């Protein structure tokens, strides 16, 4: 018998590149802005807090992209979720009821998109574009104002949003001599649970593997007896469901609803997934990669913010450069592989 080599295929290498890139970027931030507090654990945790919603959404997006689909309705859905929560709280509806309502809306919305994509076989881009316009429109129908959630409108929700989960390590003493313990918020806990559950689901459940199979070769998947339509339907339900959870995480961070909220969030989710090694053509990808994709985007924003002088357009340009880099790396790997196969 031959010695077993570690299964290092090009996808694993891509994931490692993503993780390495995150570490390099973060170290860069620490070196440049160490004095401004970048080295504190809290800076990293703040990236998590700000992007908790995006992590959930990117997980859902990854699942859809694995089936070679796409869901660009997520930005609109998040805006609608935030607006529903904000208006609902201000009307005095209890927070748990609103949260359930938002999740239910997400599920119904996902069933519709999934039905159109899976069973009516309409292009996912078109379906979710319609979904995007619909959700943006509905947000404005609910309210065109900027609605905030305050302590008066919902003490419970306010308490959730401001709850600090203190960590027992990594604190620092500030210049006034007060010890600051690092903390995360509830939305980070939710996001990390989502990440772990989806990671596990993709690796260890039939549904998870079906997503890969459908994206790898849809016709083959059907021939092998998988119900492709149902797999797609469930993928879109999952995406919208996770998007609603992400919307709640997002709302817990912003505590407001507005028509202009979460503009372009779908693109952030897609770019995170792509930087994390998910292929738009389907069948390849992992939520861990997408998680690091989100972190990379978050780190770039954080560096630009800490600098304070750079224009806010810099994160976009850097993300563009990164996306470009990753697409080039991916196609180089693809070229090497097809040469080997020849």
């Amino acid at each position, binding site marked *: 018998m031959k010695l*077993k080599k570690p*299964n290092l*295929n090009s996808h694993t290498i891509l994931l490692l590149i993503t993780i390495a890139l995150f570490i390099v970027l973060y170290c860069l931030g620490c070196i440049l802005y160490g004095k401004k507090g970048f080295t504190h654990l809290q800076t990293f945790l703040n990236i998590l807090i700000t992007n908790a919603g995006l992590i959930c959404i990117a997980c859902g997006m990854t699942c859809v992209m694995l089936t070679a689909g796409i869901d660009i309705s997520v930005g609109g859905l998040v805006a609608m979720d935030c607006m529903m929560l904000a208006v609902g709280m201000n009307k005095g509806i209890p927070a748990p009821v609103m949260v359930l309502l938002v999740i239910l809306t997400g599920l119904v919305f996902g069933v519709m998109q999934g039905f159109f994509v899976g069973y009516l076989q309409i292009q996912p881009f078109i379906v979710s574009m319609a979904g995007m316009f619909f959700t943006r429109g509905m947000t404005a129908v609910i309210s065109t104002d900027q609605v905030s959630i305050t302590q008066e409108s919902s003490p419970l929700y306010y308490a959730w949003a401001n709850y600090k989960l203190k960590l027992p390590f990594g604190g620092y003493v500030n210049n006034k001599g007060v010890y600051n313990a690092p903390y995360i918020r509830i939305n980070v806990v939710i996001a990390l649970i989502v990440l772990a559950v989806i990671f*596990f689901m993709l690796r*260890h*459940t*039939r549904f998870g*593997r*079906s997503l*890969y*199979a459908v*994206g*790898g*070769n849809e*016709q*083959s*998947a*059907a*021939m*092998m*007896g*998988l*119900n492709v339509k149902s797999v797609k339907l469930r993928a879109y339900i999952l995406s919208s469901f996770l998007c609603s959870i992400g919307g709640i995480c997002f709302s817990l961070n912003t505590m407001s609803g507005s028509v202009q909220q979460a503009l372009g969030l779908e693109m952030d989710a897609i770019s995170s997934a792509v930087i994390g090694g998910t292929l738009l053509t389907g*069948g*390849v990808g992992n939520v861990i990669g997408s998680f690091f994709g989100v972190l990379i985007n978050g780190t770039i924003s954080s560096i630009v913010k800490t600098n304070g002088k750079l224009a806010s357009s810099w994160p976009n340009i850097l993300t563009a450069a990164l996306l470009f880099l990753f697409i080039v790396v991916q196609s180089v790997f693809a070229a090497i*592989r097809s040469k080997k*196969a020849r």
Partner: protein
Amino acid sequence: MTFPGVKALDRVDFTLRKGEIHALMGENGAGKSTLIKCLTGINDFEQGEIHLDGIEEPVRNHSTKDAQEVGISTVYQEVNLCPNLSVAENLFIGREPLTGIGTIDRKTYTERAQKIMDELGVVVDVTRNLEYYSLAIQQMVAIARAVDMDCKVLILDEPTSSLDDEEVEKLFNVMRMLKSKGVGIIFVTHFLDQVYAVCDRITVLRNGKLVGEYPIVDLPRLKLVAAMMGKEFDDLQSIKSDENNVTYDELEISARGLGHTGTIKPFDLDIHKGEVIGVGGLLGSGRSELARAIYGADKANSGTLKVNNKEVKINQPIDAMNLGMGMLPDDRKAEGIIEDLSVRENIMLALQSKNGIFKLMTRAQQNELADKYISLLSIKTPNRETLVKQLSGGNQQKVILARWLATNPDFLILDEPTRGIDVGTKTEIQKLVLELSKEGKSIMFISSEIAEMLRTCTRMIIMRDGEKVDELSDDLTEENIMKSIAGGDKK
């Protein structure tokens, strides 16, 4: 079941007994694929019934999953697996063993997968992704998958077209093993040798109708071919013209030291006007690579090439096209045909790109040209606007051939033009090659079938391990060619 314009299957009876290997034969478009698709639930059928042993009701499958549940599994010519999943996953997807908490039991199915592949005598690491392995291994995985599903009926739809002899023998062993276990096997192939090697019984279809069912001993080759073609067997040996000793003196192509690093070692080659030159060798010996180097698909990085005694530089295929070359690639699905375009559009493609985008052809001109080639090559299509994907494999091949003929090339490279198509169409294509050469066109004919090249070529070059090793012209016999391909000491 009907296809556009043609009734694909017309009241066909087919019986498969337990523990037999049953060949399903017929020309392209005879209805073999359609019959299989009806059995496996991919296509619905309008009349008739399917009965299976042990099931009282007539069976009607609506999906491959239904078919698998009643014990009908299929392995297709094109591998229908997911390249991005591991071998083990491809074997078990959709029916993975589950653990107590409902997750898939990776350890168990990996072990089982390794055992299955070991039993079949295929050396693989089942945890590796499928795309890592050759097409032949992928095919074996597909068969392993079907076999492991406890099928009662196994349908093999041209499973051998991408396998080499040794792999075919392995497959046959597996088939015989299954047969002894009582599995009924439907075997579709174009290779007559293989039919006589393993099958017990033959059913012949023609134009969607049943010709007959015969025990193998009652149907010798000639009768089988006659039954498939529906006419007295046109003796293939006779198509080669008697003017065998024509001498060619005008050079069309002359290569000196042409090579492409990594795919083909430098070679010298002269091709005369009006000559049909064969390229023989095993799969992967550099036959296609030789053609690709001349045609510029792999840019040659050594040597010189003369066309019509003028030295030329070919950097990409369009240069070759402008010099009057054409190439029919061996993988028609990936490199040749554009399935979602019509027959007319597919025929126009090469001519259009040769002319450039500014020289548009009127629709009337296009129609005229398309019709001309449809009738010239007798392409079986309802009309010229039918999408190519609706045609059968042999007819798709003719469409690509028409595409290159439309550019009126002086030198045409045909890479495996007859693979996967039936005997009748094969003969037609061989005849066409000879006719073209009479018109003064030079043709390079690449094929795995020696008999076919003996019929068409006047000279052959032999490839081995990426190198041109021999050139045969006077002593062109099957024995000599075999010896040369096999290598070792000659005579």
